[in-house]
């Protein structure tokens, strides 16, 4: 191993900027690959901001995932404390040390016992680092928190500065990817201005108390020669240590599923292209209070259990007993799934606990139970005012996590108004299916209406359905849409009655008209009959008159004939005019 002085001769030439993954969730995404390889990075922040954890995760992940052994040089806490504190985060430092993948050098500085007697430098510190690096062939180094040296040797800040610069040059010259932590000063990033000579990459960890809730933020202040996200990113310290939440750079590389899952409500499945929601998708059920969101979510759970799936039901408002009882009242027997070990409840009353702590608990349970479906009831309790401004971002992260793990997520959200609140809007842009439950008021009652606001990747109904809760479960019926708008409940029933009456009325009128027509027809026919009768009478009278006339003519003729005979007998020459002067026609016709 070369002496630290070798650093002065310069490091190897770099053509491009290689990066070393930290393995810290989210951080590698915002830095597009991690920390600059072979260069020191300054991680600064106040006490408790998570600097040491950042440094340790960088080393442990390097050793376990990326085959890069690491040296941890700490000025902060005794070895036993360090091992105990990190084992609770699942970091097995002692085991890694046994395997030669990690070397921890605890530097104990007790200022009161060191007497200064003339000039000195920190060559021994450099010797320690050099020795440790060589011993395990380290590629990574973390120094936590080097500024303690300024306290120990308070009279010689200039010497410490120049010595640290020498150390950093040496680390760089030896191609060691290094994390150096520093405590934040009043107006400076670090108390002793280390940022002045650690200019390659600077990460700031911040911890603020906003509305009585601690929120953590991370920002990459500087990254020489590389693009990086410049925003403040919320982060949490969870089961797996640090998790940075880079909302804007969530990679969308999860597997998508074509499999469809029934919602447990035939009417709703029908609205969702007839098949229900996609597996591993996220469903948001939002609505005002008392609209039946829990019942809908419970139906999803029931359907999932019927398929043999495992459901983890987070309830932040009701106890399991309350949910089981309430669901039983609408014909949903969830108790059998609890007994079968398929349905797991986790209930927690809303507290002033930060959303971070809440999400950590949720993550632990998800790991333990490995469910196929997660229900969060209601997700709005995670993002209320008391949980801090980062809550939506954290929830988005959680949803993303569930999605990438192939877990179907059902979220309910309580909204004050019908169109949701900012936090819900935040989530609603991420979810795949958004079902909205509204109440319709009128006729002295409130009725529930349900519609699918969006459902990605499937044809879905644009209609509002009335959502009826009964002893036999949930039923969706088409609502009445009339000139007065959408009607539900008894108003719908009333409107339907009115419609029925109108139809009945129309029938009656038609019947009346038909009857009237029939009456008229009868009248006309009677009239016709009367005329006919008159005519027949007249006809018969006329006929009789004609007949009588004929009879008389015949009688007259035969009378004349008889007269003629008599005349012929008496006188053969006789004038016809004398015979009958009034009837010349009879003479002619003769």
């Amino acid at each position: 191993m070369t002496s630290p002085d070798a650093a002065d001769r310069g490091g190897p030439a770099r053509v491009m900027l290689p990066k070393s993954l930290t393995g810290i969730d989210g951080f590698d995404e915002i830095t597009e690959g991690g920390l600059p390889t072979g260069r020191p990075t300054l991680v600064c922040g106040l006490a408790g901001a998570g600097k040491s954890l950042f440094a340790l995760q960088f080393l442990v992940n390097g050793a376990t995932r990326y085959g890069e052994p690491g040296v941890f040089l700490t000025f902060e806490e005794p070895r036993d404390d360090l091992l105990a504190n990190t084992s609770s985060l699942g970091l097995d430092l002692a085991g890694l040390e046994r395997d030669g993948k990690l070397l921890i050098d605890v530097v104990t500085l007790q200022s009161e016992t060191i007497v200064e007697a003339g000039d000195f430098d920190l060559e021994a510190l450099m010797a320690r680092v050099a020795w440790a690096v060589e011993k395990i062939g380290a590629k990574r180094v973390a120094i936590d928190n080097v500024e303690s040296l300024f306290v120990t040797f308070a009279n010689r800040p200039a010497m410490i500065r120049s010595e640290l610069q020498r150390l950093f040059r040496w680390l760089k010259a030896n191609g060691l990817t290094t994390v150096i932590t520093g405590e934040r000063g009043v107006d400076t990033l670090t108390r002793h201005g280390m940022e002045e000579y650690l200019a390659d990459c600077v990460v700031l960890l911040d911890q603020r108390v906003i509305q009585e809730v601690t929120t953590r933020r991370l920002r990459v202040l500087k990254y020489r020669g590389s693009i990086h996200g410049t925003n403040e990113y919320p982060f949490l310290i969870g089961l797996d240590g640090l998790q940075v939440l880079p909302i804007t750079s969530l990679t969308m590389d999860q597997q998508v599923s074509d499999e469809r899952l029934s919602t447990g409500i035939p009417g709703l499945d029908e609205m969702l292209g007839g098949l229900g929601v996609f597996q591993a998708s996220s469903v948001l059920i939002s609505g005002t209070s008392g609209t039946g969101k829990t019942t809908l979510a419970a139906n999803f759970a029931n359907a999932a259990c019927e398929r043999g799936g495992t459901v983890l039901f987070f309830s932040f408002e009701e106890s399991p007993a309350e949910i089981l009882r309430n669901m039983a009242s609408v014909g949903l027997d969830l108790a059998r799934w609890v007994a079968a070990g398929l349905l797991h409840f986790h209930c927690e009353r809303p507290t002033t606990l930060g959303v971070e702590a809440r999400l950590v608990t949720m993550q632990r349970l998800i790991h333990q139970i490995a469910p196929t479906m997660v229900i969060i009831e209601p997700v709005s309790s995670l993002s209320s005012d008391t949980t801090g401004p980062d809550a939506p971002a954290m929830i988005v992260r959680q949803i993303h996590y569930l999605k990438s793990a192939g877990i179907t997520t059902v979220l309910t959200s309580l909204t004050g108004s019908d169109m949701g609140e900012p936090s819900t809007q935040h989530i609603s842009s991420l979810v795949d299916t958004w079902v909205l439950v509204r109440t319709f008021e009128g006729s002295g009652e409130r009725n529930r209406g349900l519609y699918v606001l969006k459902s990605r990747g499937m044809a879905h109904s644009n209609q509002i359905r009335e959502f009826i809760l009964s002893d036999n479960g949930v039923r969706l019926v088409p609502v009445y849409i009339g000139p007065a708008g959408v009607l539900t409940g008894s108003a719908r029933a009333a409107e339907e009655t009115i419609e029925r009456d109108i139809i009945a009325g129309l029938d009656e009128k038609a019947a009346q008209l038909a009857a009237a027509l029939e009456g008229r027809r009868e009248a006309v026919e009677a009239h016709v009959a009367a005329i006919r009768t008159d005519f027949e009478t007249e006809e018969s009278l006329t006929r009789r008159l004609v007949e009588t006339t004929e009879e008389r003519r015949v009688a007259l003729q035969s009378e004349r004939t008889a007269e003629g005979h008599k005349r012929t007998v008496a006188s053969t020459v006789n004038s016809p005019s004398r015979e009958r002067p009034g009837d010349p026609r009879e003479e002619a016709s003769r």
Partner: protein
Amino acid sequence: MTHEVAPDRLRLMLFISGASPASTRAVRRLRDLCDRNCPDGYDLEIVDVYQQPALVVSRGVVAVPTLIKDLPPPVRVLAGDFADESAVLTALGLSGRTAD
């Protein structure tokens, strides 16, 4: 060191770095100082921090030169090139003898 071990006999460990000027200076000054002020003799072990890094770690040394006085108690740690002689004598508990 063949001297009979006395309870008040000085046992010193000096951490230096190779043949650097400060280290050379420190060794010379310390020997000179001890020779003049320790009539009963003293034990001095000189450790090169690059030769025996494990000892550097186990003794928690960061500065060079560093002198550790293990005996007589209490243990004292000094850092420097011993330019300040009176500070060294005080720390080693030898100041009273000089006055004699």
